[in-house]
């Protein structure tokens, strides 16, 4: 059951690779939030109810609802293009992300450790690589945010892979970082949006000095 959800998570990554609509990115983030909710619930049923409640609310509320909705607001206010323009053709992106998924499985099948649940590791590696790759190929700050959030989902899965309860706090911290980052950048982008037509990082380069 957990593995099925992980499988679906991998499929969202492929969908992310070949879709070009900005709106779809947010849908993917939402779906990933829900999937992570499911995974976390199934995996952590037995732990302290308080922690569980925290983690579950984090996944479903923050990841699944709050962040995507906030980003959607931002998207609308800044009149972003409907399509995300990347430097690399989508064709190559699909291949790269498929390779990342295979790499994740290959790597985690080679790791044998009692404290590590490798099935999460496989998906987490794929998600982290995808997120970073996503940031690299796009020029829009908005899509950068999406990339960061995907990476964060990967980190979340990674913390599940490590298995004990402590890393959840680590994850919470990272989540907080990202969340604050999103907020700050969002507000920043709102301001930048007034100045520049497009939110390209190239434009930001003009702001140095």
């Amino acid at each position, binding site marked *: 059951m957990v593995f099925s959800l992980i499988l679906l998570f991998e499929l969202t990554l492929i969908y992310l690779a070949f879709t070009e609509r900005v709106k779809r990115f947010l849908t993917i983030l939402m779906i990933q939030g829900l999937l992570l909710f499911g995974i976390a619930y199934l995996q952590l049923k037995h732990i302290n109810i308080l922690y569980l409640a925290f983690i579950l609310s984090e996944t479903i509320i923050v990841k699944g609802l709050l962040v995507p909705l906030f980003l959607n607001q931002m998207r609308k206010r800044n009149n972003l293009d409907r399509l995300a323009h990347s430097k690399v053709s989508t*064709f*190559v992106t699909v291949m790269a992300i498929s390779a990342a998924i295979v790499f994740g499985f*290959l790597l985690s099948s080679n790791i044998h450790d009692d404290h590590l649940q490798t099935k999460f590791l496989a998906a987490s590696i794929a998600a982290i690589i995808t997120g970073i790759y996503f940031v690299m190929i796009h020029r829009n700050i908005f899509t950068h945010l999406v990339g960061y959030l995907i990476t964060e989902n990967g980190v979340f899965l990674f913390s599940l892979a490590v298995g004990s309860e402590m890393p959840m706090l680590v994850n919470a911290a990272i989540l907080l970082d990202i969340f604050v980052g999103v907020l700050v950048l969002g507000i920043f982008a709102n301001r930048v949006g007034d100045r520049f037509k497009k939110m390209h990082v190239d434009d930001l380069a003009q702001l140095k000095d």
Partner: protein
Amino acid sequence: MYLIVFQFLFVLTFGMFILSKKHMSYFGLLIQLGLAGITGYWSVDVLIHGTIFERELLINFWGSPLEIKVDSLSAFFILVLNFTLLTGTMYSTGYLKPYINEKNHVEFGLHYFSLVWLHISMLLVCMLRDGLAFLVAWEVMSVFTFLLMIFESEKGETIRAGINFLLQMHVGLVLIMAGFIYAFVHTGAVFSFDGLTVYFARFHPFPLFLLFFAGFGIKAGFIPLHTWLPHAHPAAPSHISGVMSGVIIKMGIYGILRILTYIHTDLLAIGIFILVVSAISGLLGVMYAIVQHDLKKLLAYHSIENIGIIGIGIGIGLIGTAKGIPVLAALGFTGGILHILNHSLFKSLLFYSAGSVYMKTHTKNIEHLGGLIKRMPVTALLFLLGALAICGLPPFNGFISEFLIYFGLFKGLLTADFQTDITIMGTVICLTLIGGLTIFCFTKVFSIVFLGTARSRLSENVKEVSVGMIFPEILAGIVIVAIGIFPIFFVKAAGRVAGLYVEDIPWIIQNTPSLSGVSRASLVFMLLTALLWFLRRTQQKRVQIEHEPTWGCGYSGADPAVHQYTATSFADNYRELAPPLMKVDKHFESLKEEDIFPRPRSFKTETSDRLEKNLVEKPVRKVIYWMERVAIFQTGNLQHYIMYAFLFMGLIFLLTIFKLI
């Protein structure tokens, strides 16, 4: 007895120069038939009984009699090269007819003399085991190939490609020689292939194998050692291109296979290495082929692709052996080795028919051709046969070897572990992509060259070539169809060779009812097609048949001669997907706003091989740059040179004093 005749034929070749130009090809063919007959007899015997044929030649070499040895690997290659060289010589009779008046007696004689000696040297390469003798035969083969290639030596490009070929072959020779010497020095065993056994048994084989692979790989044209191939093929006369692609590059594969017979450890690493290099060669070869407009250059890139497929077979065979998956090993090797035969057949057929097109239209640029099927129907249909075969489509021979490889892969999937499964699936993806891209490429080539209407004057008043040129193509065509429909016999022969690497091959082939299934399905397919065609014929007799211009989608000015698709446009949507590999230069002048009455404009695209640019041209330019810097010492002044000598002596003196040397 046969041995004496065999050697007598060597001497007989010198008679070539006393014949008239017209009779040279027949004389050459006669000698080659003799050679082929004798060696073929030995080889068939070896393949049927699985014995090893050993004899001593009458020639003394380095003080000891020269020994020839034919095992199943040699036998297979001998049969393949005999067939291709014979068809090559047959084809050359017609192909070189226009040159009879242009070329003088010596040039013509030298060409046929080289052709026969190419045959002899290749036979010897396959049969000799002594290291030095092998290297000599190998070198003789390269030199005669060079001589054959530069037949049209009045063209600068031909000479340049020839020199390029010769240089690269020598690099290969040096690498192979280095391999032999290294093994010899480290073991002190005999300087021969058998001596390598000792080395491989005692040391890690992988490094030395790498050396040999580089040496033989240059001949075979594995990427990135392929850079001579795309230049050599267009430069050579077509029968030589056919022979070169059909068998000369296979000698590289022969070398690799021969070395592999002595290696029994480290097989996994070697297998993965070969697999990766081959997969890259296969994919990139066909990807570069699609954007070519020079018909022979395009076919040359396809040779790289097919070498890749052969290598994939060998690579998975090795992985199967190393991992203990007999079915993967057996079918991989068998498929790879059978593909050697298959490729030599359809590629020589394709080169011959491309040569016929070139002979009649005097252009190799496919953008100038078109509609040739109406003027050269037999050549067109034979080209189509070759194209279907090279795409690996049933019911032709290319399918059989690819099928064996696929079958091995899918069977191997069941018993392999995780990493091997991923490797296998990667190989399957590569093979399917190679297959699909080949179909893309050959639908393009065939339809641009032979279908539609003429794209320039060159292909207008063209006639079919003579029967003498079609005959060898038909010979190759017959074998192509025969392998496609009755594969068992040929697969068994290839299986015999694969038996050198894997033990229970016969068992596996016996237990593979698929091949009879394939031939049954192929027969059903052909019968059904014939039946439908017959039905169609009867239907067409009853109804009215009209001939009109092509439907222009409502545009009455449509004219196929102007609006039909070109090779560039056919490859365009593919080219958009592969920018990192292909550099496409577009030369055009864009329309400006103030151009109210635009002048005539031109649009030109060029594609170049990025690998070749970055791996060969750029470093070479760097080297030349530094060479030129060094050249300032070459002043031409005698005093300076004496000073250099003096300085050098001083240097030696100083170094000796300080005990540095």
